[in-house]
């Protein structure tokens, strides 16, 4: 095992700052994100450090709320993805046969849709809102993670310690939970970080298109959508959420790379 490199630690620090930034919103730092505090479309200045939007609301607390909404939504969705992918991937990889075929074909069907099209489809069925955004992120991220977990499980299932456990009479749940799951956990963790960045991008895209988080609640996608309308006349509206979105995705990817190097050293990485 290797230590996290400096870049990964930097990414982790950036994520930590973003989380603290987001936690400031419910704590009241920056003010009420929905309150009308000043004139419309004011550039950054005292009283509204990131300017005001088209309703005279301070952009700073809205960006804080937006980061929180996006991170929470994406994290919950990725957690759901991780649980489902671990269950289906391990079962499919370990048992093989018809179960493997069924899971893999379902995954391939989901994989055949472009991410944003799949997300829009889900939003059209469920109606715009957080539920649609959450379901969309899960459906967009689940195919890749399931495939990778299944591949890892196939490799682990052939290891001697698994065979020994089976010979010694361990039941299926025990084999999967005690012997397979711990050995694919690294893959889940690494893929989870990538899924998180995909989730943030999907949430942003859905909200940008009006299918995700609904106003007045702020999310990075909602803020970028609103800021995009005023990009020339009031660039400060898109600058804050845009920079934060880029920083969040960059940081998560850097941390993901670090985790991969730590948990799946290049020499032990499987190409299956």
């Amino acid at each position, binding site marked *: 095992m290797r230590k996290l490199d400096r870049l990964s630690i*930097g990414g982790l620090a950036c994520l930590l700052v973003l989380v603290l930034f987001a936690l400031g919103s419910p704590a009241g730092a920056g003010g009420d994100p929905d309150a009308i505090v000043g004139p*419309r479309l004011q*550039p950054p200045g005292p009283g509204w450090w990131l300017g005001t939007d088209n309703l005279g609301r301070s952009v700073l607390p809205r960006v804080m709320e937006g980061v929180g909404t996006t991170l929470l939504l994406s994290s919950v969705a990725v957690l759901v993805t991780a649980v489902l992918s671990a269950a289906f991937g391990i079962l499919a990889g370990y048992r093989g046969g018809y179960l493997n075929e069924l899971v893999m074909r379902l995954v391939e069907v989901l994989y055949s849709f472009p991410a944003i099209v799949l997300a829009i489809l889900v939003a059209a069925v469920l109606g715009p809102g957080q539920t649609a955004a959450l379901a969309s992120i899960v459906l967009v991220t689940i195919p890749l993670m399931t495939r990778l977990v299944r591949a890892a499980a196939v490799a682990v299932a052939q290891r001697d310690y698994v065979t020994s456990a089976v010979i010694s009479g361990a039941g299926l749940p025990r084999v999967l939970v005690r012997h397979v799951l711990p050995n694919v956990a690294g893959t889940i963790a690494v893929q989870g970080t990538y899924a998180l960045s995909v989730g943030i991008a999907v949430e942003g895209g859905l909200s940008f298109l009006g299918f995700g988080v609904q106003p007045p609640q702020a999310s990075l996608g909602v803020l970028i959508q609103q800021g995009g309308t005023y990009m020339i006349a009031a660039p400060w509206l898109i600058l804050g959420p845009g920079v934060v979105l880029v920083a969040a995705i960059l940081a998560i990817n850097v941390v993901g790379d670090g985790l991969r190097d730590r948990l799946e050293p290049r020499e032990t990485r499987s190409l299956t």
Partner: protein
Amino acid sequence: MRPLRLACGVAAALLASACAATGPITTPTDAAQESAAPGYLAVADQALAPGGTLNVQVHIDSGAATGYDPQLADVATTWQLLSLSYETLVTVGPDFAIQPLLAEKWDTPDDRTYVFHLREGVTFSNGRKLTADDVVGSLKRLLASKSVWVGQLGPVDEIAKDGDGKVKVTLKEPYTPFLAALANVPAAILPMKEIDDKSVDPATTLLGTGPYVVEDHRQDVSWTFRRNDAYWNQGKPAADVLNITIAPEEAARIAALQNGGAALATLGNVDSESMLAGAADVKVVTQATTDFYYLMLNSLKPGSKLADPKVRQAINIALDTKQIAEVALGGKGEPTAVTPAGLPGSCDPAALPSAAKGPDEAKRLLAEAGAENLSFTLTIFNTEPAPAVAQVIQQNLQQAGITVKIEQMDEASWSGKVYGKAPAEFDAALSWFAGYADPGMVTKWWNPETAGFNAGFMRPDPALSAAIDAAGKEPAGAARDRALAEVCAQADADAQMIPLVTRPATVAFRTDALSPSLYATEGYGNVLRLVADARVKKSR
């Protein structure tokens, strides 16, 4: 580390540029709008040669639900499209004056009788001459229909031919808004001979006396109109072809204006004027309208606190219409009572009983009604600036301790939720009415037995209905103003539909491609009212 440094550098540069950006956005004042003539925002340059193709973009293709029968059309966006092919006996000019159209003049021998003299040489687009029978048949068909507009026509007693080329309408009692009611598309004159012999179905075919005929229509995509060569008004329409593209996204309409894909577009964002200020050859104008936003409170939903007049009154008091106008509409709208602000004889919204009270009174009323922690969902459509209006309402009501959850949907879904069932299932909803050209007309929608469309969420208020009827009978003047003031006060107290702010219409056009005519004011939500005058400078 290089990518990270680069990203930080770019972010810092962007931040610096934002901080150094221009000062606060200023909204051009009305005075800054070039006024071509009194009552007009623009007048088409008649020196330009007629012909060419005029490309227009609008946000919605409504009408599919009710069909294209003008008498059954019930929303302003449909009236706008149908007005290209259909005409009425009278129309409105600048400053809401009633003007001749298919009737070249009219007599009023007494306050209950109108004799319309039909214009000579008018034909339908199939070439058949317009007759008095078409007029009589159209108005009788309208009165016998389930059209929402029947309530606007007032107490019509008899419609009959009065010799060749004349039609006499007799009312049971005086009704001041009668001519203004005749000026809207549902009162259009239809080809009754063809409708009666069933060779034309007005629900699917547009056959009128208007300047354009439909050449092609793809629902929610586009309309193509070509000029009616038999049009009675010499020299009109100026453009040979009128393409109307349906572009729901505001950004798409703005892009089409900028790249020349559209010569004229309707815009919803109240900041469009500022946002397009630097765009070459694009001019944005704001038409003052009598249309206004209003808040519907469903008093018929079982178990709803909104059935309690005190709760509705508290909401009415807590609303800050001045802030809604300033913030959500960027100062382009103004507070209004049930009689539209801007029309002669309308009430002063600042003089309404609810305007003199504040959030404390609202809290007291809520406490009396046992609704201290009132919470409800406000259902809105996602067309700008409705979401902005809803968010300011949410902030206003929060001051009185009322929690509002905003539910946003597309216009079709919104319409289904608000009007689809009786009793309706929504708590509160936001919409807008065209304010028309007479201050008494829109007040008729405050009587659900007349309006019909709101019977699923609104309980009739006998006192308010009586006041509305009384105002309709009064001739224009001080007595009518007093009667309308009584209507405003009654509607303010009833608060099942709360008038908020006027709704400006923003129109943008390319100065290098088009010389349009546009009234400074509009009462029927019809931005394309003078499109037959528009001169195309070049076809793209």
